[in-house]
């Protein structure tokens, strides 16, 4: 029994449409009959004061009603007191435009009653209004929860992986379907958030537990003097880098950092100076006062990653910083073999590494570009790769000067 009375959207719309149609007929018929036609004349006593039951739409000539317009449209009086709708079968009714009535040949069928233009418009107006109102109301029942759901889904995408709580929909209001959907959505948000957090914790724990044996291994290698030991040391370093970028990925680098105005050329120069100090072939040049609004640590991570990629795969890194009216562009060029066009988009996928790069000399985790692009998008910027016509790869970062 309880199920029968559940507030479902189906029931709501069904009843709304039904009630709206019936109500519009009743109301239109009654208003037209009482207020427009009534004022012209009335049949003797008749049904004044009682509710008029209309025929099916549109409202036909008023049965038993007065001779509207002094016989202008009257083809014959109906029997007074005849119940409405009985004076003519529905469907036969016609509404010739006013003024042409006189030209209409006399009808052999049942007598016809014509409505004056004003009454006709009122009749339609009332119907339009009521059905329109009901349609608007019903559409809101459907669209408002959809809109809320869409907004919440967008927020969910943003909040997953960041430190914000997942969005929550109201589960206590609306129809059964809306409440069900809200409940399912909230469950899903919670689940996703938990999963993501769990994964982050797992990676953090794994990283910690991997770094301890790596430290042991590194200490052990210190007592061995051989080429193999040197290669093992390089492996330890590579594994540590992988752990580092996995951690960065799952902890969500840069989520909590506030955006500040950053001197991009100074950043590029400082990174290059530090690398030059270690004997790498790097250079940085460009427009002074190239200021972009960005998260300083996140931007540092991205540029540092692009420069070390250039050094790893392309032997050298030449950084150029260009100031444009609305943006700042950072170009990192290398002198390597570039990337096969077919792989250009795939290099941004996590754990993807280019053909032939899975060797000691060019190691790397395959997470760098994925993280870099993610971080740059978060700054409202873009990161693109292209092969240079003169050889080598060019990474281009464009950052908005202001956000």
């Amino acid at each position, binding site marked *: 029994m309880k199920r029968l009375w559940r507030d479902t959207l189906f029931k709501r719309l069904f009843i709304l449409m039904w009630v709206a149609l019936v109500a519009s007929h009743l109301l239109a018929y009654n208003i037209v009959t009482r207020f427009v036609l009534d004022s012209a004349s009335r049949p003797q006593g008749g049904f004044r004061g009682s509710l008029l039951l209309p025929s099916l739409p549109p409202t036909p000539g008023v049965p038993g009603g007065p001779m509207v317009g002094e016989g202008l449209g009257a083809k014959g009086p109906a029997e007074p007191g005849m119940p409405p709708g009985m004076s003519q079968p529905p469907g036969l009714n016609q509404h010739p435009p006013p003024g042409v009535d006189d030209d209409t040949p006399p009808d052999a069928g049942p007598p016809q009653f014509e409505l004056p233009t004003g009454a006709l418009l009122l009749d339609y107006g009332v119907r339009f209004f009521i059905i329109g109102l009901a349609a608007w109301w019903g559409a809101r029942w459907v669209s408002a929860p959809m809109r809320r759901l869409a907004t919440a889904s967008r927020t969910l995408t943003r909040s997953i992986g960041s430190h914000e709580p997942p969005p929550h929909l109201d589960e206590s209001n609306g129809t059964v379907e809306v409440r069900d959907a809200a409940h399912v959505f909230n469950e899903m948000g919670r689940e996703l958030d938990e999963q993501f957090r769990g994964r982050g914790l797992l990676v*953090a724990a794994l*990283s*910690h537990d991997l*770094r*301890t044996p*790596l*430290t*042991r*291994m*590194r*200490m*052990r290698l*210190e*007592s061995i003097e051989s080429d193999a030991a040197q290669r093992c040391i390089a492996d*330890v370093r590579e594994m*540590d880098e992988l752990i*580092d970028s996995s*951690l*960065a990925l799952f*902890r969500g680098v840069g989520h909590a950092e506030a955006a*500040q*105005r*950053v*001197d991009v050329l*100074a*950043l590029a*120069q*400082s*990174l290059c*100076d*530090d690398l030059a*100090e270690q004997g790498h072939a790097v250079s940085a040049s460009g427009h002074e006062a190239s*200021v972009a609004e960005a998260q*300083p*640590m996140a931007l*540092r991570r991205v540029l540092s990653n692009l420069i070390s990629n250039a050094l790893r795969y392309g032997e050298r890194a030449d950084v150029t910083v260009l100031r444009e009216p609305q943006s700042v562009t950072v170009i990192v060029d290398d002198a390597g073999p570039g990337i096969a066009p077919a792989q250009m988009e795939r290099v941004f996928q996590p754990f993807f590494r280019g053909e032939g790069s899975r060797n000691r000399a060019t190691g790397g985790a395959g997470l760098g570009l994925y993280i870099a692009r993610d971080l740059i998008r978060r700054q409202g910027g873009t990161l693109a790769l292209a092969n240079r016509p003169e050889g080598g790869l060019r990474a281009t970062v464009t950052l908005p000067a202001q956000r």
Partner: protein
Amino acid sequence: MARCLLVDDDSEIRVSLGDYLQRFGMSVLCVSNGAQMRRAVKSERFDVVILDVMLPDDNGFDLCRWLRQEHQTPIIMLTAQGDPISRVVGLEIGADDYVGKPFEPRELVARINAVLRRAPAGDAERRDQPRNVKFEGWSLDRMQRLLVSPSQVVVALSNAEFRLLIAFVDHPGRVLSRDQLVDFTVTPGVEVNHRSVDLAVSRLRQKLGDSPREPSLIRTVRGEGYLFDAKVNA
């Protein structure tokens, strides 16, 4: 001979790192948890404490804070959670250096030596210096290595420039010879000499917007060295 206290819960790391440090002329006491560390520190004087962040019975950060209140002993934090945030936290609560696991053993030795070198030269004074300093509208965050210009733009510094600027803001209004600047800015793994100091000065001037012809912030004192001519506020 430098006396080291090594706190780590992993027995093999304790043994191998202890042996390794002894090869460099240090005497090492190894303990495996926070309680043992507290006991050791109370009964003996150490020149440096090497402290793991994750311990079975205690948090390395809490131990570091506790040790800082009781003693002036330099602390080097060792951690497997080597991310920038925990580095800042570690330095903020008074650690002298922060080394991520797995570390290069030689680098750890170099850092221990650097900390030991700084320690006798009034390390307590150095540590009491405020985290944020301001000069001529610029502000410098030592922990995050963040320099912000008078117009609120973040200006990144290279390691060499940062070390040099720290040396300058710690000694404002004093002429520093190139030798002194080399001493102040020397760091493991990098060769610092008169030439590299001159180079870092000219780059730092550029970043601080100081005219190379007539510098007003970092002035050249002919035949003597450089003078940081600014009022430094906490």
